[in-house]
């Protein structure tokens, strides 16, 4: 018992992110929580209602800038003051643009979620402008997985389907509720799941050893239309959207674009959307021998955005939003 209490105290310093189920927003970080995440990076974050990362709720009457994105925007890994949403708000304020920035990032979210949830987002946040953070997986596999909100083509038209309802047994509900009370239990279950995944990849026993078969192509996305996905998001938010792409960074060829990025650029140019890619700043990272991704406790250039990446992303967004403001669009 003593060991468990000690472990609970230790785990709470390292991984403490309690969730709750919101009838409209689903699984969100419990409002009023100060979450700690030190497994990758070292972040302390405060959370308010509707799964928004902020110390206090933002009044919809102020018409905020709504930032949608995945774990790169949610950013457990960095503290509040280092997130690009907070930096962006400060930079806009310095330019005399009084617009609160609402960080509604959620791990695993994809463009399909942003389209499926448009009515709710507009009603609850009343945004004057929407920033949609994307990475390559969002535009390829992530938005097409049937186990969560996903796109599909119906009669030649791109449709966003909401996440399928998940039935939960009484035991599962009890365990879920217990996990929210004990950081040790919660993290222990996460660890068990990680071990189970690692165990699944262990080589089988009593089989002929040898080179393991190469993993096939992860998937062919030839039929995935990047422009259609961006178009669906832009249409949902009445074209009042800025897309921010976070492409992978290679310090040796920092400016070499991937095929998904090329499709992203082409679509943005063709439709005249407001689009940004962190790639435009990658030569700076390469010259300074840094990376927008990775932390001392995880690795260089792996995983999520570090505070430097957030700062540069905020600079980039601030420049674009100032331009939109000058053009009277914001």
């Amino acid at each position, binding site marked *: 018992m003593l060991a468990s209490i000690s472990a609970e105290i230790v785990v709470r310093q390292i991984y403490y992110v309690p969730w709750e189920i919101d009838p409209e927003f689903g699984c969100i970080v419990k409002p009023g929580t100060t979450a700690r995440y030190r497994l990758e990076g070292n972040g302390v974050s405060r959370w308010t209602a509707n799964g928004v990362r902020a110390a206090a709720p933002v009044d919809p009457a102020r018409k905020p800038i709504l930032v949608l994105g995945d774990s790169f925007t949610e950013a457990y890994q960095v503290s509040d003051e280092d997130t690009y949403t907070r930096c962006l708000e400060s930079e806009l304020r310095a330019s005399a643009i009084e617009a609160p920035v609402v960080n509604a990032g959620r791990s695993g979210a994809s463009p399909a979620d942003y389209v499926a949830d448009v009515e709710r987002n507009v009603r609850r946040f009343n945004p004057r402008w929407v920033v949609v953070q994307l990475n390559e997986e969002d535009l390829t596999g992530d938005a097409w997985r049937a186990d969560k909100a996903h796109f599909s083509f119906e009669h030649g038209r791109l449709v966003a389907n909401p996440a399928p309802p998940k039935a939960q047994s009484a035991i599962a509900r009890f365990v879920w509720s217990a996990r929210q009370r004990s950081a040790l239990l919660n993290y222990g279950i996460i*660890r068990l799941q990680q*071990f189970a995944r690692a165990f699944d*990849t262990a080589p089988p026993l009593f089989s002929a050893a040898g080179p393991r078969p190469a993993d096939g192509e992860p998937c062919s996305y030839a039929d995935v239309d990047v422009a259609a996905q961006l178009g669906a998001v832009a249409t949902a938010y009445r074209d009042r959207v800025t897309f921010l792409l976070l492409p992978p960074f290679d310090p040796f060829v920092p400016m070499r674009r991937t095929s998904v990025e090329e499709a992203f650029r082409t679509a943005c140019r063709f439709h005249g959307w407001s689009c940004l890619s962190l790639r435009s700043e990658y030569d700076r990272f390469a010259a300074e021998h840094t990376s927008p991704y990775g932390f001392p406790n995880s690795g260089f250039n792996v995983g999520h955005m570090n505070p430097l990446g957030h700062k540069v992303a905020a600079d980039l967004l601030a420049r674009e939003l100032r331009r939109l403001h000058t053009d009277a669009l914001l």
Partner: protein
Amino acid sequence: MLFSDPRFFGFFTLLLVLLRVAPTDRARKGILTVASCLFYAAWDYRYPVLLFVVAAAGHVAAVRIEATTDPTMRRHWLWFSIVTSIGILGWFKYANFFIATTNALVPTADLPLLSIILPAGVSFYTFKTMSYAIDVYRGELRPCRSLLDYAMFATFFPELIAGPIVRASVFLPQMNRHIGPTRSRLATGASIFLLGLTKKWLIADRLAMIADPIFADPSPYASTTIWVGVVAYSAQIYCDFSGYSDMAIGTAKMIGYDLPRNFHLPYLSANIADFWRRWHITLSTWLRDYLYVPMGGNRRGTTRTYVNLMLTMTLGGLWHGASWNFVAWGAVHGAALAVHRAWRELTDGRFAIWTPLATALTLLFVVLCWIPFRAPTFAVTFLMLKRCFVPHPGTIWLPPALGWCLALMAAAHALGAAFDGAHDGASKPALARLLRIFGARLGRDEVTGWWVRLGLYPTAAALLVVGWVLTLFLFVPTATQPFIYFQF
């Protein structure tokens, strides 16, 4: 099946239960032999055939050597054993290395590489069976009369894959023991196993996450980061291999056998010769007794002694892997041993470097030597060595994990050094007093040396064990890396 694989825990628990309920020692030995074969077959069901060939050749040779007094025939049977073992090792481990080297030296050769898989543990069990035949040839050992005993020795799974290299003269005399788990064996063996598991999971696997990307491509990194990678690997390989050895020793102890110690605080060595008395002890003593001494050792003059040292270490390097990097690593260590010997003879012990400085210099040398050992190519080796000494701008990565891993290692080494002091009698009373405060006491084991027993306060001991297991469960990387020495 790794020792750190959850499936191993199931396998081993079942084995202990069977050993406990088996009615006779003979039945227990049979169960253990079958379990060892299954353990080995779990890697690849074809491997036991190879093990059988190597073991049979060693035993047949040993029996024939014993049976005849004709020196020529004895020598022939010895060579039969050596050629069989070296032939199998050479084919599986070095065939492609020699083909690739030939292709590189003679561009017109263009020999195709062979599709050969290196069987796990082949370097270890070939050495083990070779030493058995050589010991019988030298008259230091009589061949094993019981086939079951020999089969158990040859297949004994705890040390089969990555050592310690157990000689027949150490293992066979233990055959008359009543094996099987007892409370005392389980307590000592499990704590040694847990210590090894901690070294592997908590330190080695964590440090692998730092060292691997730096060694894979050091070019974007600054000199500081290169040092980080080199130091991380130095700590990783020690914790990985000594962790494996601890797990092997602990596993064997729970069954009822004692395996020899393989490491003894190697990074506290005061010179390079001392290092090789403390690092992979069973290999270095094997090389000394079966390679260096037969080549003449230090009995054939000064020059020949240096040549023998160089040759022994170079071959020792090659034993680690079929790569010129390993050869270079062995050769550099051989040269260092030769220089150390020359220095000692030149000064005749009159000039001794201050021990802490000598220890630091030895550690620096050993750490730098890990670069060719770990680097995939000579190009990477030279790049890293250059950056170690010529400041170079680049990405600076100072992972906190390296700090706490080194702190843990330093604490463990300090404790180990205190135990050594206790062994000498110097610090024993003070250490014993200190341990008593925590309800622990100092004990001694004939194989593993000094240890601490937490016996007086069961609650404190339980808290420590639960905390330890929880720490491992919560914080070790889930993707367990294979043991480094499995590739050898």
